[in-house]
């Protein structure tokens, strides 16, 4: 249960981070804009959150 709850918490934070970072210019890889790094980080949080939800559901069975 704890794993699922923390997964949900992280997913919410990740989605919010991605949405908020999209307000800033992304730039290109050779000239990264202010939005690119936070959106990569937020996507990472979202992925971790989803893995945790999945893992919690497998554990619960």
């Amino acid at each position, binding site marked *: 249960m*704890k794993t699922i709850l923390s997964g949900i918490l992280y997913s919410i*934070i990740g989605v919010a981070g991605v949405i908020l970072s999209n307000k800033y210019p992304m730039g290109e890889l050779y000239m990264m804009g202010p939005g690119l790094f936070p959106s990569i*980080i937020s996507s990472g949080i979202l992925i971790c959150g989803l893995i945790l939800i999945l893992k919690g559901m497998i554990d619960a069975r």
Partner: protein
Amino acid sequence: MLDNLALGFATAFSLQNIFYCFMGCFLGTIVGVLPGISVVSTLSILIPLTYTLSPTSTLIMMAGIYYGAQYGSSTCAILINNPGENSSVITCIDGYAMTQNGRAGAAIVVAGLSSFIAGCIATVIIALFAPSLTELAFKFGPAEYSCMMLMGLISIAVLTNNDPVAGIAVGLLGMLLGCIGTDVNSAISRFNFGVNALVDGVGVNNIAVGIFGVTELIRGYLDKTPRVVHSKLNIMPNKDDLKRMWPAALRGTGIGSFLGLLPGGGAAIASYMSYVFEKRFSKLGNGAIEGVAAPEAGNNAAAQTGFIPLLAMGIPENAVMSIMLATMIIAGIQPGPSVIVNQPELFWGVTVSMLIGNLILVILNIPLVGIWVKLISIPKHLLFPLIFLLCVYGAYVVNHSGVDVIIMLVLGVLGYVFYLLDIQPAPLMLGFVLGPLFEEYFRRAMSISRGSFEPFLTSPICVVLLLLIGGFLILGLYKMVKR
């Protein structure tokens, strides 16, 4: 080398620095003795006070708190079977057993002496080892640095949390919090939500006080473990005890010094591993002197050698070191290998001060142990509100802003939620401090290479670091599947 040592002695023996060294050791002992108050939260409450100090004095004092707490925490573990710091959890086993056998005094003396032996040896290791590591670090470019930071973050995330994915996520969350504020490259203010106080980013002290300090207070207040103090302290160790202490303390020092160097290492893991290793040599568990000597030597050695990666390369290896790094940045020092070369008085002063500090601590913790014992019996309902007020004051005083206090309290609640969900918050602190540095180096590396990842695959240092990152991720995967 001799010139540098002379400079170190001159710096450390200035009246001002001896004073701050003493203050650090004194505070560290108090923090160590009191369960429920950790080194991280103490350091973070103190950050605003260090704004007026020189960086050398600040680091001397903060270092004193860290290794001083290793001395103090054993007292509490031995006397009431409740570790003052998590680095003395393992000392409870044999230490408290000795108290029950009526040998508490001997245990406290041995703990103090082993810590002292470890402290002196670790200081020598720092002086010998850190400068040569710096030479290696000078070969690092932006790409190598970003790999190094990523490795530090991932290893800590994987090692400190039971669930490696949760650990990585909490580290990333720290990096995201570090993004708040003005972007260095474009001068665009990110994630300020229209709040003026967020334009310069969240203060490191607010994050640390909230996540560690407030959370610990809530937990400590709800913790109902009785504190029974055994006050028979008059039995000193005999010759046999001291003879058995030496080899155990030296083994503990070896293990601790090594673990202090590694990312994710630190006093807590060092004391645990020293105890496990000592089991091969001695019969532990029923109040053996070796079971006190080895872990107490280990945690003190690790607390000191942890300064090697911090000062030689600018890489913190646990939450305590990331706060030290943050205070260095606040003091205007660019962390990295240039610190030892450009600010020799800082590095050598801090190193030599550890010798003085350990001497002060032996005096504070062995003959004066009675004072600290009384401290344990201060009731929580008097102590905790006082510390809470200090937390609030510390958050308020930097910018005289109420918003900072609210941010700190919100993070405190978040920290408690993490605790309820079994998530260790140490990677968050590291991510917060390293995140902005990582972003800066990574963006620089990418613009040098014109957007190609090639330098990450052609530089031998990068390849080794990336392989290590891969190794840690596989370790994390293994940990996840095994459970």
